[in-house]
């Protein structure tokens, strides 16, 4: 139940993280490491694909907040896509759509990144 995995993909401009499973207080360190890894590699165009994300807790949401400032200061962004309605609801309740761009589909987000660069 509390299985959580992050995997990385990338195309020319965007670094895509695929989140899978249940993101709660126990599993957030994995996500934190993943962000840290990209940022130390100076990869600031980050797209988080939430297709297989089944749950996110407040601690999980906090991870996004922890890195967004850093990423945007380096002219990058964290965008999210492919959320299930349930996961979107959690993001939405807290007002995350006002802080992050959230896309229905990954390709739209990639386009947005590419358009900018």
């Amino acid at each position, binding site marked *: 139940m509390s299985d959580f995995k992050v995997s990385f993909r990338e195309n020319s401009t965007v670094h895509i993280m695929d989140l899978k499973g249940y993101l709660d207080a126990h599993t957030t360190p994995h996500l934190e490491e993943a962000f840290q890894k990209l940022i130390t590699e100076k990869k600031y165009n980050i797209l988080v694909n939430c297709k297989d994300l089944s749950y996110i807790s407040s601690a999980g949401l906090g991870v996004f907040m922890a890195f967004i400032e850093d990423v945007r200061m380096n002219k990058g962004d964290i965008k999210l896509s492919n959320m299930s309605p349930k996961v979107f609801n959690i993001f939405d*309740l807290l007002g995350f759509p006002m802080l992050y761009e959230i896309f229905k589909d990954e390709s739209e987000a990639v386009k947005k990144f590419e358009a900018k660069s």
Partner: protein
Amino acid sequence: MIKRFESPIQPIQGMKIKKILFVTGSAFLFAIVFVIDAILKNIEGGLDGVLYVRILLAAAAFVLLYFYVDMKVKESDRSQVQRIGAVAVWAGILIGAYIIVSILPLNWFESRDLQLYPRDYLTILFSTVLSVVSGLAAIVTLCHVQDMLFYKRTRGTKRNFVLLLIVMFGAAVSTYNLRPLDSSVVTTILFTLSIVLIIINSFRLSWIAYLSRREKIYAMLYALLAFFGFMAINIILSEKSSLAKALLYFNYPLYMFVQLAALFGSVYFGMAFISTLFHLPTAAAFDRKQNEVSSLHNLSRLITQVFDFNDLAKTVTKMTLEVCEASSAWLEVLPADGKLYDHKLDGIISQHNIEPEDVEQILFGGEHTVRSLVLSSKKILLIENVKSDRRTSYMSKVKNVGTLLVVPLISHDELIGILYATKEIDHGFEEDDVNIVSGFADHVTIALENAKLFKKSLEKERLQRELLIAQEMQKRLIPQTLPLFASVDMKAISAPALEVGGDYYDIVMLDDYRIGIVIGDVSGKGVGAAFYMAEVKGIFQSLSKIYSSPKQFLVKANEALISSIDKRSFISLIYAILDTRTGELILSRAGHCPMLYISSDKKEYVKPTGMGLGLRAGTLFEETIEERHIRMKKGDVCVFYTDGVTESRSSAGEEFGYERLLELVSRHRSRTSDEIKEEIIQGVWNYTDEHGYDDDLTVFVLKWQGAA
């Protein structure tokens, strides 16, 4: 020596009375014997019947003396060596008495028909005194020797000794009707048999093995003195000297008994002397073993008794010094998980007989030190000659170290410390020493681990207590009671998942008829969340009275929080103001779960937009906040809650969810707020399995009863 246990006063007094009785009793009996002798001197030929009475009286007197001596010997808590000393002293006293008496100008006896006739009363007196002293010395000797024989006794020990006593008494008694200068076959046989038994008993010398080297030397000296003393007594008594005659005149059985006792003394202590002499070369080794055993024993006792890490370390190095007679020793404790100390000598504890500079030089004086060698090999390292060994060439500045022993302390394959011992001379540690110390190291490891674990568990207990205090304090941060209004029926409950949590609800009277209700949830759980929750309480209590609209309140609360909150934490909140006269509810939401509103014609989640507190500052936040107005009708129910309710999971992993909550409340909407609250809690409880409920959970139910 062990301090004697102070027994209560009563028995000691009893003992004293007994002792006095024994001594005075025997003195009285001896006096009677003397008087009889004095009278008999004037009766030609003597009286046979009276002679037996006299022997019996003397025997009874000696029995009383025996009781006295036995009590004294048992009371005194003497070591074996002291016993030999005491016996030697008694032999000396006896010889002294003999010498004094023999230089006195006495007339002694006239002998006729193997019978002795004292020439005067003084002779009778001295014979009596001499006999009493001799008998007393014999008794003291036997009592002490008995104790020595019985040290670590085997099955035969007591039997042999009792047999010897019986035969000795037999030999003595067999002479009861002999004239002083006579002898008999029976007596001779029993005497010979006694000698055989004396020799057999004299092999019981097991106490020697357990003496330290120093004690052995004293034992030898005393045994030699005792041996010569008893030999001298034997010689004096066997020559038919005046002294022997004095005893013979007094009592033939006594003479026999004293002679046998002296013989026993000389054989036993002669054997003791020789045996100790042979034990002497191995005494040092025995001492070492003894030391080792007692050190290990002490250590294993320490393991269970001493939990203070530093105390333990001190004892450990001190014992290392004892165990292998090292000249210096110290212990290095390595930090867990490969961390480093602030200063490289921080791990060195309890140095004995060595300067810190020397320790630093030995441990860190070169690139490849003995320390780094042991760190990588995890094996015992013995440098036999520090001056010439190339592994210790970097240690040239260090004086007074000839041999160096480095022992790793390994627990579960992990190096937890290193024990160091040095000796001033080279080749100072024998193979035996190394074995001892390595065995010792295992115990030390366990002891240190125990001390660590104990400290950890103490720490844990302390934290647990602190948490309980925090829990108590947090309970006081939420309202103990809610204000009562005829128009509103309210009930709330909050339960943290851990000891403390981040859920919060509160209520405040804004004026006589308006109440402010807040419910919130700090991201995360536990102590961190609890701190923010306390901060929110402070903010709510102060700002709610100043800002009369929910939106204004949230904006100001966000301003207050944003500067102090960690960037990955945030707080979700709903703030509602209820007019208790009209039932008008104004609410704003900051990222919190929407309010459930159940009316006769409407069932909905009221979800004005609004971002969580602590995410964005200033207008960015303000712009997102909406305000909603609801005019409640009689019987309408509002439920505020935290995500602990909707996100609780069933064993299948499915969430309780919004639908289920809405359905549950609308089903029970006609009931009281308390009942509705209970239904929600029960519903969530029944829905989840034991692991499903792992978040803080808060429910606030408000029911409008209609304007009063």
